[in-house]
């Protein structure tokens, strides 16, 4: 089965799962409302978005320089820096660091980049035990599922489902469907693991070049524990996360937390700048940063597609996406779902692999309206559609250009073009369409399952305009 067919199958399956759809719908309603409460002044919002956009834009424009500066500062601070061009390289680097340190168990803070490279599976194959410490990640790790949302990975599950899951894995704990009790259970289980872990792995939200600071945004304190309790901390992030200076952070952080969860600020905001110093009582003795490219440089090469990389992973675009709301994150079958996934994934993995994602968008624009860094997501999706069916559409370095071009479609659109660009043909066509409307096929395909087929009007607009005495020239 090819990727496109697999995608359609996942969609069909997702649409049949009423429970998951209901869970997602109600969670997204909540997130949308909380975000809206934070941004009740449209003018202020537009200024804040513009500011965040320009910070991210500037960082990308100066990326090479900033990355150099970042590396230099991190080294000065005692943090070891590693560059990974591919996912495979990143996995290798991390497992080598862990093996060299003799680490057997690790705790992880939430990191989408680690999902992108498939780190958990890779480490488990090397007999390293991985424990997700973010509550949502912990839940889906138990359920052996990938995240369905980039901020709230277990959002597709409701508390009853989570209660059953906990009960299955920890029968010694008493069954409860109470959210607080469930959280306490997870906390208890995780605390023990934290004490024993040899290393912590985390993501990074922003890497500040000026000071060599790694910023980590979280709500549960698990990020802080993962990065401070074990002796070794490995952070991994995409190269696009670098920003110039510390004063860039408030403008981005503010937009990130408000857009993501409707919080003015998260419960924890960690700024990591060096390993434990001789006079300090805690903190990891060694800190590493792995900077991952994995196709990002190729995207950055192009001035239009580069906008993709402004993303600060707030998840707001998926919260507001009517397609995401209906099918959920798993239907996409990619690390990043929703509008940003639709734009980013085909660029990372190639249109030939996952270009079909771009069809799952009605171009309604709800995502672009809320994106805190003003990424024109529908425009980019539409552009990728053009790249997908035309190898020579642009000279952009997109993988798998033209791979979704299908001869019947080309023929259909070419006939359409002939009819609609020639006034005489168009009129003849509409005369036929309107005069022969009794011939309208009532089964035009699957879409007629949900609505009746519109019949052409009895008279064309041209005829009506003439008959009613409008100037017709």
């Amino acid at each position: 089965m090819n990727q496109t067919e697999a995608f359609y199958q996942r969609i069909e399956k997702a649409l049949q799962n009423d429970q998951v759809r209901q869970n997602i719908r109600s969670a997204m309603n909540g997130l949308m409302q909380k975000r809206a409460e934070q941004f009740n002044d449209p003018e202020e919002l537009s200024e804040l978005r513009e500011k965040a956009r320009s910070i991210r834009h500037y960082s990308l424009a100066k990326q090479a320089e900033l990355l150099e500066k970042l590396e230099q500062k991190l080294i000065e601070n005692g943090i070891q820096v590693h560059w990974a061009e591919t996912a495979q390289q990143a996995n290798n680097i991390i497992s080598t660091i862990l093996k060299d340190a003799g680490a057997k168990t690790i705790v992880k803070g939430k990191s989408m980049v680690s999902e992108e490279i498939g780190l958990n599976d890779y480490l488990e194959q090397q007999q390293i035990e991985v424990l997700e410490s973010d509550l949502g990640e912990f839940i889906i790790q138990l359920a052996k599922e990938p995240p369905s949302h980039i901020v709230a990975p277990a959002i597709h599950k409701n508390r009853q489902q989570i209660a059953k899951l906990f009960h299955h894995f920890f029968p010694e704990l008493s069954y409860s469907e109470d959210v607080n009790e469930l959280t306490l259970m997870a906390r208890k289980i995780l605390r023990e693991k934290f004490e024993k872990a040899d290393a912590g792995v985390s993501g990074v939200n922003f890497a500040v070049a000026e000071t060599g600071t790694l910023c980590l945004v979280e709500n549960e304190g698990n990020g802080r524990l993962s990065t401070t309790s074990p002796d070794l901390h490995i952070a991994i992030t995409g190269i696009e996360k670098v920003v110039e200076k510390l004063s860039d952070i408030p403008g981005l952080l503010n937009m990130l937390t408000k857009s993501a969860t409707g919080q003015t600020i998260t419960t924890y905001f960690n700024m990591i700048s060096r390993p434990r110093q001789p006079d300090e009582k805690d903190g990891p003795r060694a800190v590493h940063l792995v900077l991952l490219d994995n196709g990002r440089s190729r995207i950055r090469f192009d001035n239009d597609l580069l906008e993709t990389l402004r993303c600060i992973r707030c998840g707001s675009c998926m919260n507001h996406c009517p397609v995401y709301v209906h099918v959920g994150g798993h239907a996409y079958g990619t690390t990043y779902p929703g509008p940003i996934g639709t734009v980013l994934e085909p660029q990372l993995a190639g249109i030939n692999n996952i270009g079909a994602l771009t069809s799952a968008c009605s171009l309604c624009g709800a995502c672009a309206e809320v994106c805190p860094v003003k990424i024109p997501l529908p425009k980019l999706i539409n552009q990728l559609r053009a790249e997908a069916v035309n190898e020579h559409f642009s000279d952009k370095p997109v993988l798998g250009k033209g791979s979704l071009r299908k001869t019947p479609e080309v023929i259909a659109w070419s006939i359409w073009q002939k009819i609609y660009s020639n006034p005489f043909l168009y009129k003849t066509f509409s005369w036929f369409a309107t005069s022969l409307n009794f011939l309208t096929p009532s089964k035009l395909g699957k879409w007629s399952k949900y609505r009746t087929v519109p019949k052409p009007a009895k008279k064309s607009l041209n005829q009506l305009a003439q008959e009613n005495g409008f100037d017709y020239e």
Partner: protein
Amino acid sequence: MQLLRHEGVRVIFPKNQGCCGQPAFNSGYREQALPVARALSKCFPKELPIIVPSASCAGMIKHHWQELFAGQEDEQYVLDIASRTYELTEYLVNELRIKLTDLGEPIEIAVHSSCSAQREMKVDQHIKSLISQLDNVNIIEHQRKTECCGFGGTFMVKQADISGAMVKDKTDCLRETGATTVISQDCGCLMNIGGAFEKQMASGEKSMNTQHIAEFLWQRCYKE
């Protein structure tokens, strides 16, 4: 057109007009979209305002033609066209400053603002302001009113199941209002929503009338 003429506007209907190119443009087939859009652009050589009665077509001409025509000889010409393109309600409210008198019976309606009207053309407030002039018409707000109805042009064909789930949600929310009629600025959405109501009627669900704002105003304010 009748409504505009009634308001003293001389309306010219360029006889060669076809399609703005949007269906092909949104499917990636820009090569095919360009000649179609160009043929339409040639219909409007005179320095006159162009009134488009569907927000998504207006959005295509006003905002996407520049992308489609980028680097072409006639790029400047289509920019000029974009600058004098108006969505119908936008023209009625901002340019014509139309005054309406409601002659109809009391009615409760729901208004579906299309995605293009809200987010591209930003004209969704105009339909409301027109209706607010009508004494006997009461708008009932529906849930998730900013959410897409699932039309999306070829999206409806390519992702029929997702689109079907979206229009089902939309019709459910509209039905919940208890209003009898749905009014919109966009013909595509009306076709989608109207078709879905008709289909659902077969399984015994309550239906609603769907009507374009121009037709609605014409019937309420102008017919003796």
